[in-house]
């Protein structure tokens, strides 16, 4: 009696192992599929783990209800009736039942738990996983901006219920006058600032007061003492300090004299 009960416990454990393996493989596939989607639209990769974990939990929970001897019977029809009879009568005892239990134990021991696995299904999943892994890697280079996170947030900001939840909205527009050189300044777009006051932190060494008139002395210092040369030209740059200009001017003069001496 205890032997047959022990056998049924073992069978249920085998069924559980099979369910665990299949559910895990399916979760891995689900992870890669979601990861492809996430990387395509620049979503955080952790979402893929969460999705796969949720899928694993839900599927495992549903499959746990299927842990019954009938699952083993379905995969082994040759001993189905014998097994179901033994399972339904495991609490009874008589001569015939004792013999039946012995026979069931003998036959079940000869069967492998591999009979529970559908080879085709497992093979397909094992082949699919590396394919999906490679595909995920390849797809991760691409981005679809239409649905990037910023765009999602912008879109959500249009909806009133999200007011104040997704950060401050900045008024403004993007214009393109086509006047600027793309190579130096990047994209041919200038952001037109709106009415709002904005704080810009800049390099302190920068002369930012655009209303101050040009310093004619500074200009004269630059070019007054050094004759114009065809060889070297000094280009005035507002970011350079007066000391630097003098130093550079000295260097330019020395170089020009060398060239004249060579001639």
């Amino acid at each position, binding site marked *: 009696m205890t032997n047959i009960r022990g056998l049924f416990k073992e069978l249920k454990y085998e069924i559980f192992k099979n369910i665990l393996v299949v559910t895990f493989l399916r979760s891995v596939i689900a992870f890669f599929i979601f990861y492809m989607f996430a990387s395509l639209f620049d979503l955080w990769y952790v979402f893929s783990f969460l999705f796969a974990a949720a899928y694993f939990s839900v599927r495992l929970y549903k499959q746990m209800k299927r842990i019954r001897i009938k699952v083993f019977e379905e995969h082994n029809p040759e001993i189905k*009736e*014998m097994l*179901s*009879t*033994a*399972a*339904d*009568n495991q609490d*009874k005892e*008589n*001569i*015939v*039942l*004792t*013999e*039946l239990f012995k*026979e069931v134990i003998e036959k079940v021991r000869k069967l492998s738990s591999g009979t529970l696995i559908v080879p085709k299904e497992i093979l397909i999943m094992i082949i699919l996983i590396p394919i999906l892994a490679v595909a995920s890697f390849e797809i991760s280079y691409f981005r679809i901006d239409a649905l990037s996170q910023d765009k999602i947030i912008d879109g959500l900001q249009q909806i009133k219920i999200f007011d104040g939840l997704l950060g401050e909205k900045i008024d403004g527009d993007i214009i393109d006058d086509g006047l600027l050189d793309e190579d130096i300044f990047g994209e041919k777009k200038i952001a037109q600032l709106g009415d709002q006051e904005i704080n810009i932190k800049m390099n302190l060494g920068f002369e930012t007061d655009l209303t101050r008139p040009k310093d004619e002395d500074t200009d004269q210092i630059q070019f007054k003492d050094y004759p114009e040369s065809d060889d070297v030209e000094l280009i005035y740059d507002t970011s350079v300090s007066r000391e630097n200009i003098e130093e550079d001017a000295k260097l330019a003069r020395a170089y020009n004299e060398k060239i004249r001496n060579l001639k």
Partner: protein
Amino acid sequence: MVEIRNLDRVKDVFDKISDELSQVIVGQQEVVGQVLVAILCNGNALLESLPGLAKTTMIKSISQVLDLQFQRIQSTPDLMPSDVIGTYLIEEDKGKKKFVFQKGPIFSNIVLVDEINRATPKTQSALLEAMQEKQVSVGGNTFKLDEPFFVLATQNPIDQEGTYPMPEAQTDRFLLKILVDYPQANEELEIVEKFTSEKDVPTPKVMLSKNSLLMLQKLTRQIPISNDMKKRAVELVLKTRNRKDIIEYGASPRASIALIMTAKARALIEGRKFVSKEDIDYMAFPVLRHRIILNFEAERKGMTTDDAIKELLK
């Protein structure tokens, strides 16, 4: 008590019984099998057969193989109950007269009642009472019948004039209704060869003792059955009551009991320690064919009860 180590030999025993019977009876293996099932279930069987199909030879051979006493009763319209169960006779002993009960032919292990539909209803009831109770009551005294006790009653499907057909309430008491058909051509050749040659037909040897048979009857009840098979048997009987399109009157719960018991017996004969779907489906025919009444529409179409059972098994 049948030892555990002998349980696997049960199939061998029944195979040997079949082989021994085949020395006398040609073909009819299904009929023999069903008779053995009825004996194992401690029930009685109704045999529907045309004359000359070796019914008496078969049942006599079975009684010889099983080491059981055999009696034959030929039913006629003037057969009285006392002719079947027995009666008190006055005997004189040392000048004193006393009543002594003279046992009737029913006091045997296997009783063949030929053409039971020819006996009067009163005689039929006496017989059925003995079948049911395994005892007879005569003159206020009760006499128990010997165990095992098995009645094989026969009916002739033709020649119904002057007969008293048994009502369904009485046929329901028979565990099985077995149909016997004509033999095949090759079987008939063998029959002719066996029974017209100069060699005597051998007497079957005893293969199973009376006590072993009683043990096997107890063992039959111990054969386990799964819940699915029990449901299948019960659902089949329920269908006989629900299919009003073909069946006027369905079978009673007695049919459910009979179906499961006979399925167990068949499993034991086949050497299995569990009841299979095949057992239920096979025994459905002899168990149900005499317990259902077809409606007019089905009869008009020429449907038989076996056809109706086939329809239910689909």
